[in-house]
């Protein structure tokens, strides 16, 4: 009892320690106080339940009840009895909190503020984990399993901080887990009574046995590897758009799965981007020689917390779309044709197209929103789609753009493109646009502000948000990546009363052959589009060109950092199509980007990028394999053993028995050998089956004794199984000790009979375990590991002895004996 209570306390403390990684998520530590309260309540209730000798399920119910009370007290709806007793209103309140937490996860970026929904979710999860850990540690005495729920906490920051995971919280969490294991072990040892050393000194329970030292060392190495490995591997190559989302790890799966009307572009993208390695997303073939960015999304709704996408609305694509604005002087339009092949890794309810498509070869389930210029579907997804479309490419002469008038105040776009007032932004815009008469010059003034000479630089490592404060921060720090450049410019332009929005898409990728570009997740990009009356949406890419692989500039928005002379009329590729994986011709821009992405110089040009999410996938796969391997190996072994020809009758050669001819004798001998092997195979299989079904195996027990013990204790009334197991015992004993090893009866049916009897006689858990994680295999593996480590230790010992022999001190003492 006492030991159980201690173990329960350790379980609670370990849970809290394991929750340490969450400190990287929250801005303040309110979550920790609240979680501590919840875990403490759970632990106290569990201790009380055990004091009352409640059964295991009773303990679990009690803990869940305690957790509910704690949650009620921490997150009251106001309708509680006595402040802690939940009412239906409380439950409804909890539901609302849970729902709101999903929203909060998307709207806030790390580190998140203390919002009630997020705190609720956190306390609920940690409380739940506390219940699980307690159950596994104290109830089931399987503390090793408790690592799984603890690991769940671990995975949250890993999912959020894609490239830099703070190590300390993980060390703390791992320490909690180790403590739990150690406490359990000590408790087990204590049950044997007091330990003494050779000189009769009593050993404190916490003093580890010297035998355990090797195991402890192995465990420590394992933890160190687990913590350091994700840090050593270059972080998530993260692109850009993942920073748009608030990212609590939820986005990808949750929001991305919806239809186009509810898709959260940022979160969906983040999911795509979380795949750390470079994956091909889109292949596009066009007859345009220098195509501008391929786009698939628009974020034109701006609130104080940043840009977000509106649900698109449009008509089915099986008609021709006209250009959004009429032809006029200063706009050059040419029509091109493009074919797009989307790979499996780009999976969204949106399809990428070049701006201003006019005609599609695509089924009617897809619609086009001419305002947002996005191709969307509420029924299909982009994955593995192939389609053709014709589009119009407009290029604008700066002179013509200067003629654009301010948009009439009653224009519908005005309402859609208002910007919340942020004083710092207003001040900057006023300063920048002062003296600029035309709309275009105002926009250029804002665009030009983001030049390197104004101190702006590119870095992926910053935290990216598009809310008011983040934009102000960005404008002050002047370090960021495309998301911030695109959003900041759009915000500033809006602040100057000109409609602007953020466009999503791919920068120009690698030209693989002919006119085909391969676009990867590394080409994902965001830029600004500004609406000029009479011209429509005109793209501006304010992100420094060296930061974008495949950046394209135009003469109305030239590369500000390039030499003046190099600016050629018409759209020009300043950075050229840059390779993501091939790296055959790494130019400066690409190299810079790769350095940004991997955090280390790209020397060879064949970077192997493994992001942490990729690591996780591999880890999960390995875990799965590891979990199923014993079962697979077990059944393979059983098949091999059964595949042996089990002896069915005494062969004629033996029946005649004599040793008259040498030939004959040989035959009998060979036959005897086979019969022996068969019997051994059957016996080994029987033993393994017994281990699988938690029957005892005793190395000092003879086959006959084992068989009669089973017959007596396990099978009792089952006469068939009794005689079957006796037959197996007899066959093995003959094979081992008799000159003639033929049992005279088939062994395979007996084996099956015994197994059936064991299956029938064991509870469901045992059966499940025998099928899924056969203890015989687990033991075997454990034995193999123990053997290996023992060998390692002894060879290390030999190595030490050998080196000691040559140590100078030893040599000296040898030469000068006392």
């Amino acid at each position, binding site marked *: 009892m006492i030991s159980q209570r201690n173990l329960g306390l350790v379980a609670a403390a370990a849970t809290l320690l394991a929750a340490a990684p969450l400190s990287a998520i929250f801005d303040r530590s309110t979550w920790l106080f609240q979680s501590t309260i919840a875990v403490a309540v759970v632990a106290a209730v569990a201790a009380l339940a055990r004091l009352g000798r409640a059964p295991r399920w009773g303990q679990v119910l009690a803990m869940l009840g305690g957790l509910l009370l704690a949650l009620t007290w921490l997150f009251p709806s106001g309708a509680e009895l006595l402040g802690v007793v939940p009412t239906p209103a409380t439950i409804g309140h909890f539901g609302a909190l849970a729902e709101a937490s999903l929203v909060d996860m998307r709207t806030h970026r790390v580190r998140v503020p203390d919002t009630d929904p997020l705190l609720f979710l956190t306390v609920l999860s940690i409380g739940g984990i506390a219940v699980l850990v307690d159950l596994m540690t104290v109830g089931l005495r399987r503390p090793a399993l408790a690592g799984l729920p603890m690991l769940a906490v671990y995975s949250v920051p890993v999912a959020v901080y894609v490239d830099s995971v703070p190590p300390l919280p993980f060390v703390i969490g791992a320490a909690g887990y180790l403590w739990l294991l150690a406490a359990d072990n000590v408790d087990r040892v204590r049950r044997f009574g007091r330990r003494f050393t050779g000189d009769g000194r009593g050993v404190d329970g916490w003093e580890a046995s010297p035998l355990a030292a090797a195991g402890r060392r192995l465990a420590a190495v394992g933890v160190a590897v687990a913590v350091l490995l994700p840090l050593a591997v270059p972080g998530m190559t993260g692109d850009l758009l993942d920073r748009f989302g608030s990212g609590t790890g939820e986005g990808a799966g949750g929001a991305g799965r919806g239809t186009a009307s509810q898709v959260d572009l940022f979160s969906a993208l983040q999911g795509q981007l979380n795949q750390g390695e470079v994956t091909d997303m889109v292949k596009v073939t066009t007859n345009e020689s220098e195509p501008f960015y391929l786009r698939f999304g628009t974020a034109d709704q701006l609130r104080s917390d940043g840009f977000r996408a509106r649900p698109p609305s449009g008509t089915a694509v099986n008609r021709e779309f006209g250009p959004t604005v009429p032809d006029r002087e200063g706009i050059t339009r040419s029509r091109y044709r493009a074919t797009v092949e989307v790979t499996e890794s780009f999976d969204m309810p949106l399809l990428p197209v070049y701006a201003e498509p006019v005609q599609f070869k695509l089924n009617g389930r897809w619609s086009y929103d001419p305002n947002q210029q996005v191709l969307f579907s509420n029924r299909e997804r982009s994955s593995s789609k192939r389609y053709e479309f014709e589009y119009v490419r407009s290029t604008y002469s700066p002179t013509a753009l200067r003629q654009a008038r301010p948009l009439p105040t009653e224009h519908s776009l005005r309402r859609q493109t208002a910007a919340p007032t942020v004083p710092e932004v207003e001040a900057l815009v006023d300063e920048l646009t002062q003296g600029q008469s035309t709309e275009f010059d105002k926009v250029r003034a804002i665009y030009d502000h983001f030049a390197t000479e104004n101190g702006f630089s590119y870095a992926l490592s910053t935290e990216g948000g598009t809310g008011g404060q983040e934009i102000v921060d960005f404008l002050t720090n002047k370090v960021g990546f495309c998301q911030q450049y695109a959003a900041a410019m759009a915000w500033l332009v809006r602040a100057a009363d000109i409609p602007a929005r953020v466009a999503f898409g791919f920068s120009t990728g690698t030209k693989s052959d002919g006119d085909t570009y391969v676009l990867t997740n590394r080409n994902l990009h965001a830029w600004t589009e500004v609406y000029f009356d009479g011209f429509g949406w005109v793209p501006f890419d304010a992100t420094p060109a060296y930061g974008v692989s495949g950046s394209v500039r135009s003469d109305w928005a030239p590369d500000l950092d390039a030499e003046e002379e190099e600016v050629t009329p018409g759209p020009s590729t300043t950075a050229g199509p840059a390779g993501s994986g091939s790296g055959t011709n790494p130019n400066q821009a690409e190299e810079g980007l790769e350095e940004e992405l991997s955090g280390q110089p790209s020397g060879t040009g064949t970077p192997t990028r493994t992001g942490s999410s990729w690591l996780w996938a591999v880890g999960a796969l390995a875990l799965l394999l590891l979990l199923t391997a014993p079962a697979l190996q077990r059944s393979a072994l059983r098949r091999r053993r059964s595949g042996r020809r089990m002896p069915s009758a005494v062969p004629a050669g033996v029946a005649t028995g004599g040793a008259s001819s040498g030939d004959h004798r040989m035959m009998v001998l060979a036959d005897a050998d086979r019969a022996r092997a068969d019997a051994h195979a059957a016996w080994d299989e029987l033993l393994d089956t017994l281990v699988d079904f938690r029957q005892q195996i005793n*190395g000092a027990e003879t086959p006959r*004794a084992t068989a009669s013990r089973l017959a007596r204790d396990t099978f009792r009334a089952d006469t068939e199984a009794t005689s079957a197991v006796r037959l197996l015992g007899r066959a093995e004993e003959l094979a081992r*000790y008799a000159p003639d090893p033929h049992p005279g009866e088939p062994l395979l049916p007996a084996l099956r009979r015994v197994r059936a009897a064991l299956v029938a006689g064991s509870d469901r858990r045992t059966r499940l375990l025998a099928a899924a994680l056969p203890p015989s295999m687990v033991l075997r593996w454990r*034995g193999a590991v123990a053997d290996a480590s023992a060998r390692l230790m002894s060879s290390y010992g030999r190595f030490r002895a050998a080196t000691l022999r040559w140590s100078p001190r030893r040599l000296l003492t040898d030469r000068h004996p006392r």
Partner: protein
Amino acid sequence: MTQQTRDEVGGLLPHDEFRAVGDAIVTNIEQVIEGKTATVQLALAVLLAEGHLLIEDVPGVGKTKLAKALARSIDCSVRRIQFTPDLLPSDVTGVSVYNQETHDFEFRPGAVFANLVVGDEINRASPKTQSALLECMEERQVTVDGVTYPLQTPFMVVATQNPIEMEGTYPLPEAQRDRFTARIAMGYPDAGAELAMLDGHGATDPLESLRPVSDASTVRRLITHVRQIHVADALKRYAVELVTATREAPDLRLGASPRATLQLLRTARAVAALEGRDYVLPDDLQALAVPVLAHRIIPTADAQLARRTTDTIVADLVHRLPLPQEHRRSSYDTRPTTDSGRARYEPRRA
């Protein structure tokens, strides 16, 4: 001397015949001794293993009775010696006396010149007399006045001894007990057997009417058969390990001798044959460990203080000692190779 040499006896008997003879003897003895089948079988096994039997128990549990019944069941020469303090060694071995008629010394054989010698209450004799008997048991011959006289085959001494300390007894020194192949305790009969004893033995002694069911030559054939029972190499190793374990057990001051190993295996062969097998099982060795080994070993003072009898110590060892990895490991046996349990019992050699 009408004694047959072993070579004259036939080869391996069919198992059934062996078993039939064995069963007949056991059944016969059981007419006299109620409810002691295992003891009776063990006694017979010791006979067939060419060993000697020590029956040690409190008075009145049928020790003498068992010895006599065994002797009666086999049609062979039987002598009974009632050991007393004044019994002389020459009474046991024999003596040369001067024959007036032939004017020569002539050997008058002592009590050991028989196939079965029942030595009752052996602990009552003086150590000198005891030694004389023990000499004969080992040598299977008697030397008097420089002349050596071989004893008969089969030759078996069944000695009884009373463990309760009594005035004027000379309990067999532990070292001397090594000569006995097995020591058995009779034990009290259970209630049913005792009731049956009252019914059957109340009026007449059934021993009087006991008829022999076998004879000396048959027993010799049986003995030859026993010698040919197959013992797998692994079992020989197991026997050695078992005996070695007694030598290394921390509870024991004196372990079992190599003679014990020999006799353990021989008795195991006999037991196997009596069960109709032509091969020995580890089960045989395990079952025989206590009767064959326990009386030869001496526990340490600590173990004695802890009231651990030699029986429990040996039983413990048997329980803990893992079976040898008997067969070439089959290709399907993937159990880990290190067997730390075995290593512990490996004899320590310098």
